[in-house]
């Protein structure tokens, strides 16, 4: 087995060396080796939760088979390395859709469970984990546990959102939801300030299954928080003539040697995007792919940030602190001359997530991404951690590469319960950084 540095996280920071082991047969045992292991899906988490520097990385992409599909109930059983894209390609023509999808379809089912991901319908459907009926966990001692809310519920709760540490998820059973066609009726509303966002959100969450807002990070003062509010429902018409899916798309073929994302270019791009919608309301019917996964159209878009990579920062705070913390966050970033390129704002629903360490919880969530500019940025993010902690919120580990162990323990008080379920032969860069 040789070390290899080609496995990255999506933020391309930090870099790590791994001993990769490719898995192809879910019936096979885990490798018996000295360094600790971590399952790796499609490398779409941003920080170091999918990295295991100096250790073994179990590449699960070869576990990509369907096992069973009941076309009457929509219950699908599949191996954990299958991409959400492959499930959708299969299920959509048959009238089914994934109950929860994130901003990219290029993630594996195992990754979706291990990070208990959420999507634009969190206020209706909760997290991905809420739709997992059961799963199989393969432990390093060779035992296989079939877990569900009824059977081995503690193992189930620790594996959902368990950051891949409780063992290898070999397969999972997911409840798909019925749809009539692949299209989404979308309405995009240009809104002028943060207050309007919360009004729109409260109103839209009643009538729309999917809601999210893109925030113009260049706007400060009175218009801070302005952006485009996007809300949608699965189209109800059964006609066969809607728009088709995307074609091949574009690709960033290599790592740009310097970051294209300078404070100025980010400001200009954000303003341009905000004003690119001329009317204040626009309705249209589009294919589900550009609605849910707009950035998947550009393969390896993360390469535009150059060799240093970038950092995502996503937090959630209780509703009553929402407006204040969102404002403070954007102001603080502007003050340290850091601008977020893609800023996304959403109000989570009241669903309790099943996982011990699940990130989503009732409140307001804001995601920002920053070109990695080293020390200054880290100082800013530390400050933001303090603000989030003071408001009783949490930072999302799937996007984190730098928070302190102290903050993590405060955000996730159940961490010590998870420790009991962590496989003794499993570990990750993130876990060692946060827990030791």
């Amino acid at each position, binding site marked *: 087995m*040789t070390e290899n540095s*080609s496995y990255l996280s999506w933020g391309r920071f930090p870099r790590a060396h791994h001993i990769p082991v*490719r898995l*192809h*047969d*879910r*019936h096979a045992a885990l490798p018996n080796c000295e360094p600790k292991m971590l399952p790796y899906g499609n490398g779409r988490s941003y920080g170091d939760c999918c990295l295991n520097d100096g250790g073994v990385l179990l590449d699960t992409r*070869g576990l990509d*088979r*369907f*096992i*069973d*599909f009941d076309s009457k109930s929509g219950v699908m059983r599949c*191996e954990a390395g299958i991409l959400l894209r492959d499930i959708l390609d*299969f299920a959509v023509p048959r009238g089914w859709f994934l109950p929860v999808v994130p901003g990219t379809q290029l993630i594996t089912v195992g990754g979706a469970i291990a990070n208990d991901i959420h999507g634009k319908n969190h206020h209706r459907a909760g997290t991905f984990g809420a739709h997992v009926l059961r799963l199989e966990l393969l432990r390093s001692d060779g035992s296989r546990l079939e877990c569900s809310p009824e059977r081995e519920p503690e193992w189930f709760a620790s594996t959902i959102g368990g950051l891949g540490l409780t063992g290898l998820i070999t397969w999972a059973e997911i409840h798909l939801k019925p749809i009539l066609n692949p299209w989404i009726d979308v309405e995009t509303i240009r809104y002028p300030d943060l207050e309007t966002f919360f009004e729109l959100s409260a109103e839209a969450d009643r009538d729309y299954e999917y809601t999210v807002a893109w925030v113009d990070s260049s706007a400060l003062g009175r218009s801070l928080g302005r952006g485009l509010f996007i809300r949608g429902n699965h189209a109800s018409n059964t006609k066969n003539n809607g728009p088709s899916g995307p074609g091949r798309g574009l690709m960033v073929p290599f790592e740009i040697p310097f970051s294209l994302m300078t404070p100025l270019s980010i400001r200009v791009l954000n303003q341009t995007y905000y004003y690119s919608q001329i009317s204040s309301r626009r309705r249209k019917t589009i294919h589900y792919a550009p609605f849910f996964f707009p950035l998947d159209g550009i393969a390896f878009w993360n390469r535009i940030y150059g060799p240093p990579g970038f950092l995502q920062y996503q937090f959630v705070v209780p509703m009553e602190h929402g407006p204040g913390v969102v404002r403070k966050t954007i102001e603080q970033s502007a003050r340290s001359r850091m601008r977020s390129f893609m800023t996304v704002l959403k109000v989570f629903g009241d669903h309790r997530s099943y996982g011990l360490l699940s990130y989503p919880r009732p409140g307001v969530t804001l995601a920002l991404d920053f070109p990695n500019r080293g020390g200054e940025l880290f100082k800013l993010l530390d400050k933001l951690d303090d603000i989030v902690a003071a408001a009783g919120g949490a930072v999302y580990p799937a996007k984190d590469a730098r928070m302190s162990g102290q903050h993590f323990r405060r955000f996730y008080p159940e961490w010590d319960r998870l420790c009991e379920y962590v496989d003794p032969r499993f570990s990750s860069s993130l876990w060692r950084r946060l827990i030791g």
Partner: protein
Amino acid sequence: MIGATSAIAEATARILASRGHALFLVGRRGDALSSIAADLRVRGAAQVETHVLDLNCIESQGEMLSRAVTVLGGLDVALVAHGTLSDQKACERSVELTLQEFYTNALSVISLLTHLANYFEENRHGTIAVITSVAGDRGRGSNYVYGSAKACVTAYLSGLRQRLHACGVCVLTIKPGYVDSPMTAHLKKGLLWVRPRTVANGITNALDKKKDVVYLPRFWWIIMRLVTLMPERWFRSLKI
């Protein structure tokens, strides 16, 4: 599908399954075969049967083929995809290993092709598709045991194509370049590498168009043209 657990065969089977074909899978590992079979059924295959066999047991090949014909009610396409990537250095030190590799990559294939040719000749329709390799176009110092075994199959297929042409049976020689699969997991990957899915698309496309010889991806045709045109005097001093 002979050697159905190979990455290229599995990827090809997925495409055929989604078109609703009936498939008979042959391979060494029963567990892996049944996972693949379940997957193909979900994807829409009309019927999937499995048969556990080490293709090096040539005496059992005939029986396997008759079972395939019985359970599927006849064959339209046979894809032969089994093989191993030989460890060249180890082969150089061991006659036994060299012959073993030849047995797997050439002799067992030729044995099977003899059965298949007779079946298809009698039924006067269908396609025999066999995965050989670009490595068979010219022996190279770094993997000539593997390459020469594949060359043997390529030459055999060329003759077989002439023989079966008269009765309307197609013989497809598939020459993939570097494919990122479990067989090559230990090798360093570069620009020329493709995923099994890409090769599988090329195979089904070639089957649909009843082609004779395909390089997958197609740029390998140019590369191998240049490699085969090079005078031996220059070629012998290359370290490739």
